[in-house]
């Protein structure tokens, strides 16, 4: 059993590699440029990046000054 299951396993590996070798790829410069563009486009909508004032962010405690 082990002999044929090795062959079966190898056949699956070869089929998978054939599939992976045939996919379309893009140059890293292009992919990197797209990632960068996405970051920049969405930078303003990112509260952790831009910081949110205490009044609108429910997690930041509001600084309350009280004069006693």
């Amino acid at each position: 059993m082990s002999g044929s299951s090795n062959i079966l396993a190898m056949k699956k590996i070869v089929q998978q590699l054939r599939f992976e070798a045939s996919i379309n790829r893009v140059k890293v410069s292009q992919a990197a440029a797209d990632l960068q563009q996405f970051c920049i486009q969405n930078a303003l909508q990112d509260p952790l990046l831009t910081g949110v004032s205490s009044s609108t962010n429910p997690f930041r405690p509001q600084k309350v000054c009280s004069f006693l």
Partner: protein
Amino acid sequence: MCDQTFLAITFGPCDNCHLSKPLMNIYLKNEPINYCSLCVEEMACQGLAPNETLATLKSESDNLKTKLEEERAKLHDVELHQVAEKVESLGQFVMKTRRTLKGHGNKVLCMDWCRDKRRIVSSSQDGKVIVWDAFTTNKEHAVTMPCTWVMACAYAPSGCAVACGGLDNKCSVYPLSLDKNENLAAKKKSVAMHTNYLSACSFTNSDMQILTSSGDGTCALWDVESGQLLQSFHGHAADVLCLDLAPSETGNTFVSGGCDKKANVWDMRSGQCIQSFETHDSDINSVRYYPSGDAFASGSDDATCRLFDLRADREVAIYSKDSIIFGVSSVDFSLSGRLLFGGYNDYTINVWDVLKGTRVSILFGHENRVSTLRVSPDGTAFCSGSWDHTLRMWA
């Protein structure tokens, strides 16, 4: 080809040759059949073309692997941080613990946000699963699981249920009720069954389907209502530790990372592995898609986080420092994808600039290793859970 989901041995008459022999109970296209080992071998050999031997297949696989490497290297014309040189550097970040959620009696292992951006579910080693209101730090629901080490928990998109699992090898769904006195454990529904521990689970875009990954090396897609297995994903050679679904509404791919150092991208409908990345030096503990869906980050025991681009089909950035020697347990992106948060086993959280590859900030606060980290759905804060029994909200 046989699709062996479970392999068990019983004794009896073979379905093919009718001789009484030890049988292999295998599943052929989800139908169980009982063949003796001789008939299974004969059936397996029928799949081979003439002249295909182990040796020829091995050499072909080696050739294909080198060819893949060459193809990938051809397109590697520049590094991500070189492209990002012209981008403005990020300023100083001040992020502090804004809330501390105390209540777990043991290590917090996993957490997830509700889509209402306010509620959180967390699970711990002592078997407790707690639903919190993160703004007020109140506990809304608590369930005690029958097993310890609840390593996975997830919130349903509707906010009406939570799923969790761990050493019980199952994923159970608990519908959340508004009635505080209701016994949640009574309504529990067992959905997934694996042959080893459950490492991660996630609802798909609806409450109706759950994706799970397990220590048995497989991932699986289940229908919640019937508990039926819809699709299984085989390809990892060792435990699968993490998974993440692609962000798009129509998306039907997900990425998984495992102890075999590989991160695989799968097609949910066909069950096929579309892409595979093997550059980490150790177990991959966490994977998370980039917000655009074109890339994903991974965190590993080799103390690095890496960014893999799906269209370029390669790793495009490594986030590491010589001074960081402890493994990464979990990673997540900020809303724009510019920041990558990593929870480390040295009790800290490192914040990386995704484009430039530099560390922006290091956050201290936890008193034991950070085990889980998720950014809230609206990006205003992120939550980290740790072995020090607490969860912290950072903003």
